[in-house]
């Protein structure tokens, strides 16, 4: 079943990628292969392989058994939640500033992974933020986002 889904997704991706390659502008500086040449070849290759995978899956005739993990969407949604936390961090860090945002990320991620709220959790998040801030900003000199704090304070 998974091979069928993989093959079908591969075919769709190959078709979309081919069309996108076909729509690429042709430059006057272009060589014989052109900007679209290699992408089109890759799309055809992916399409052929996807078709082979589908044929192989159909030929194998698997007996589909609905396992808990396949039927239950909860674990997948839970996994996507991790990405959601990262996206929230990326969206808020420019406003909150790096130290606050990374402390919040550490705390919320620990909660999301099952840690109970406690003063210790808050301490760990703050200590972690101080550690990362010291490492990236003070030692490595990376310009991390300052957030709105400089404007609010000064």
């Amino acid at each position, binding site marked *: 079943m998974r091979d069928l889904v993989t093959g079908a997704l591969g075919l769709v991706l190959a078709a979309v990628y081919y069309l996108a390659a076909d729509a690429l502008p042709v430059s006057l500086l272009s060589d014989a292969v052109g900007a679209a040449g290699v992408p089109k070849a890759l799309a055809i290759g992916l399409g052929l392989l*996807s078709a082979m*995978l589908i044929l192989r899956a159909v030929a194998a005739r698997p007996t589909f058994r609905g396992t808990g993990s396949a039927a239950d969407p909860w*674990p997948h949604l839970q996994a996507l939640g991790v990405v959601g936390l990262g996206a929230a961090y*990326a969206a808020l860090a*420019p406003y909150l500033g790096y130290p606050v945002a990374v402390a919040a990320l550490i705390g919320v*991620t620990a909660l999301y992974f*099952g840690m109970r709220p406690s003063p210790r959790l808050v301490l760990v998040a703050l200590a972690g933020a101080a550690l*990362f801030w010291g490492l990236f900003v003070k030692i*490595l000199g990376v310009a991390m986002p300052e957030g709105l704090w400089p404007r609010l304070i000064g």
Partner: protein
Amino acid sequence: MSALSVAWNALTSNWSIPAAFFGVVWGIIGGALPGISPSIAMALLLPFTYGLDPVTAVVLLASVYVGAEYGGSIPAILIRTPGTNAAAATVLDGFEMNRQGRGGEALGISLVSGLVGGLFGLAVLVLLTEPLARLALAFTPPAYFALGILGLSVIAGLGGGSLIKGLMAGILGLMIATIGTDPVSGVPRFTFGTPDLLNGVAPILVMVGLFAVSELMVQVTEPAWNRTERGAVRLKLPDWLTWKRMFKPHAIGSVIGTVEGITPGAGGTIAAFLSYNEARRWSKHPEEFGRGSVEGVAAPECANNVVTGTALVPLLGLGIPGSNSAAILLGGLLIHGLTPGPMLFERNPEVAYGLYGGLFVANIAMLLVGLVILTPCLWLVNRPKPYLMAFVFALIVSGVYAIDQSFFDVGLVLAAGIVGYGMRWMGLPVLPRVLGVVLGFLVESNYRRSLVLSGGDHMVFLEDPVALILLLCAVGLLAVTLVRELQAARGKSRLAP
């Protein structure tokens, strides 16, 4: 003998030995942080070398390079996050060993393999710089294309039991590599009007997403935390039997690391992948690869560290920096008015031989520093799972942002994480995809450059002797892999009821 005394005097008459230790520590920290590549770690120290004497400055930068190339393997083994591109091949068996409670053993293997590779690379650099530098000059665009194809031929063996899925994953990686400005005509491809994509997608972003973010996504669905036994949270250096098992992968890694290192632009990543694949091919226990194989850690780690020495061959022999890290080292030399190339040995022998001596000290320092820091690293990753995952996530987003100060990159990594999670569900192997991303630009740009130079004649790939040899090697590798796949498939069908 006079060279040895020059090296000894150059090292002991200034701060070179402490600089080598400091450089290794700095490099390990930089290499262990995803987003801080070896070249970035070196570049961060470059301004501080102005005030140093030339030998100390060059030794410091070279030691950072040695430390960083090794440091990338630590998070690869402990938290499934390759700190550098070259450490991606170590993830597969290194992290699996850690998951089995053998993290200390994996780190020990990685450390001694790094040492063996580093010393071998140094020996090659000292003994063979002149003849190998000439070989580097023989690499033309067709040869680079063939080198990329040789690297891609590994994909056939990385399919994890399904050649079709391995090839599909490889093509997906090559597709990602086509994003950005077209290497010949300058046309933006698949950028959808986003300036952030004009430079393409950096391989490290794809790797961190595919390996690390997808691992976080999997871990959140697995509540049980298999605490490692107490004895396993200590660094374990290889015993005699393990050394015996590592001999072959070390030999493979040494040869491949030498060839890849002297080839400008190839670097440790291709060397690590090729070595991994060849170690599996020549192993008596190929079935252990991907399930915590000793050889699966030893081969890529050795090859990767051989490159730290051999990548300096074109720089010292010809004055050509073959990698970003070598370019930073070149900068360090130029700052002090030194011109790398054959004349460096005649005009400034103390710098050239001091660098050799410094690299030797750096490799020993890597071992000593590793012995000190690895057990605490193991202790750290055995903290409660929610805290560990939270810190890993913070490290990922911070490290990725640090590359270009771009939240777009953080978004790309998260997207790559979703793709990696989906690939795990579909059973698509990750390594071929990584290889495709790493090699895509090299293959396409040199393929098209070759055709431009030859007026569109594909015979150019067969007329260039280096390209022909490499292509024949690639065909040979593919043929052997296909034959083995067919034999395995026949064996399975015979066993089936």
